[in-house]
């Protein structure tokens, strides 16, 4: 698996409960192998995805963010993904001016039955993020004064 060559990266996935999470499940049940960089956060609907979730992840150091919901006309709540589509499409306009490579963010639609498609989406997006490499964190953090993660390891 070429995408797993080298270090695993941190990709955050926001998946709607009804379609894409099901699709990921189908992929798992079908034993479609997938790269393991993606950390999935399940939300009720892609319409629940606040664009700030994406931004918080990216500014917080995520190497990539993937959003996936039900296909248009297929939303469990009838129209959540339509709102999501507009919000996320608009959000793409913010990334380059902030200094974040817009390729680090993508949204797509995967239904619960599309296990194979889910595999394809994850592979494609993971490969894209690996091609970009790890994201550089925003400088200007007070570091140890803020969070003593090293201390947390002491036990």
């Amino acid at each position: 698996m070429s995408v797993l060559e080298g270090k695993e990266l941190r990709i955050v996935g926001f998946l709607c409960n009804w379609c894409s999470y099901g699709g990921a499940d189908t992929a798992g049940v079908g034993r479609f192998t997938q790269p393991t960089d993606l950390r999935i956060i399940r939300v009720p609907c892609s319409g629940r995805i606040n664009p700030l979730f994406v931004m918080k992840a990216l500014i917080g150091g995520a190497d990539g963010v993937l959003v996936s919901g039900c296909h248009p006309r297929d939303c469990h709540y009838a129209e959540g993904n339509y709102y999501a589509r507009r919000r996320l499409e608009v959000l793409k306009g913010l990334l380059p001016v902030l200094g974040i490579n817009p390729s680090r963010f993508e949204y797509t639609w995967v239904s619960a039955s599309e296990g194979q498609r889910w595999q394809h989406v994850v592979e494609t997006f993971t490969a894209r993020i690996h091609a970009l490499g790890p994201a550089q964190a925003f400088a200007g953090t007070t570091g140890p004064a803020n969070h003593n993660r090293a201390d947390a390891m002491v036990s």
Partner: protein
Amino acid sequence: MSAETVKKFISFDALPGFLARAAEHGTVYAPRREGSAVVYRPLKPGDAPELGARPTESCKHVVFPRSETLFSFAGKADAAQPAVRRPVLTESPEPGPAVVFGALSCDARGFLAFDPVYKGSGTGGAAADTYYLRRRSRTLLVVKACKSALNTCFCNWVGGGPASAQGADVLAVEAEQGLVLDILSEQGAIFAETLPAASEGQVGAALAAVKAVEDSLPKAAELSAAPAALASLFSSAEFWKNESAHCLYCGACTYLCPTCYCFNITDESDGLSGVRLRSWDNCMSPLFTLEASGHNPRPNKADRLKNRVGHKFSYYPSLHAGRFSCCGCGRCIKSCPSSVDIRKIVLDAVKEAANV
């Protein structure tokens, strides 16, 4: 500038080298232009401080950081019950020494408003702010006398002046392509010990420069009636509503103010460990006094502006020998997005109280 103190001289040419050597002993902060603002930044060794630039912000953050860690905590397994994690506290490390080179005289005077409060005057000294005191004692203030006053300056209303030495370790006055340094403290003497004494001509030029700028200031307004006036207007809701009408209650005035010393304490945690932070807080925000029950003793911006002005010109002086908690730097006026003018409010209050 007094006649008794030692005067040294440094030429502008020699300044970068001198400050680079000083930086070996601690962080040297100096004014720097960034965009349309002027901020105090650590000086890169070899760079010249931008002494002609008047800082937008005060230098209080050198002693009182915008946010600082009081202590960190981390869960450690209990010796008796290893499954139980108990927080272990670690105090933040001691700060290193610092020099502010080119502070404004109002900035230095600002710390004089902090000092009694942070020395624990409220508790009779029983509880002093160790974090502030250790930074304060390790920060040397080299004040650069102003060469002119802005429209918004009113240091002379509140006991200061463009070349006031109050609170400074060294007072620097531009003269003859360099700075005449008036040495005002032992630490200041150590800082300048390698420098030659100023010549009589240099000192004379510096004195003339100080006199020129002092003379250029408009006459100070009389504020002695302000504390009583403000106290008497506490219940004059209409007065405060009018004075605060255009205020947009952001925190620009408080955060730029050299004497505003209020803070918040909050925890940041990732679950297992975290820090307790002390960060600047702002009395103009409704959250400043909002209680968990939802009750807020100062729900309106009028209440909050009243407290802000009242604190500076009435409450604080009543606790600290009449000294205003205002150094007249005028930053709250200069940088107010809605042009609120604290001078006008205080003068209006004096007038209003006289009429009542």
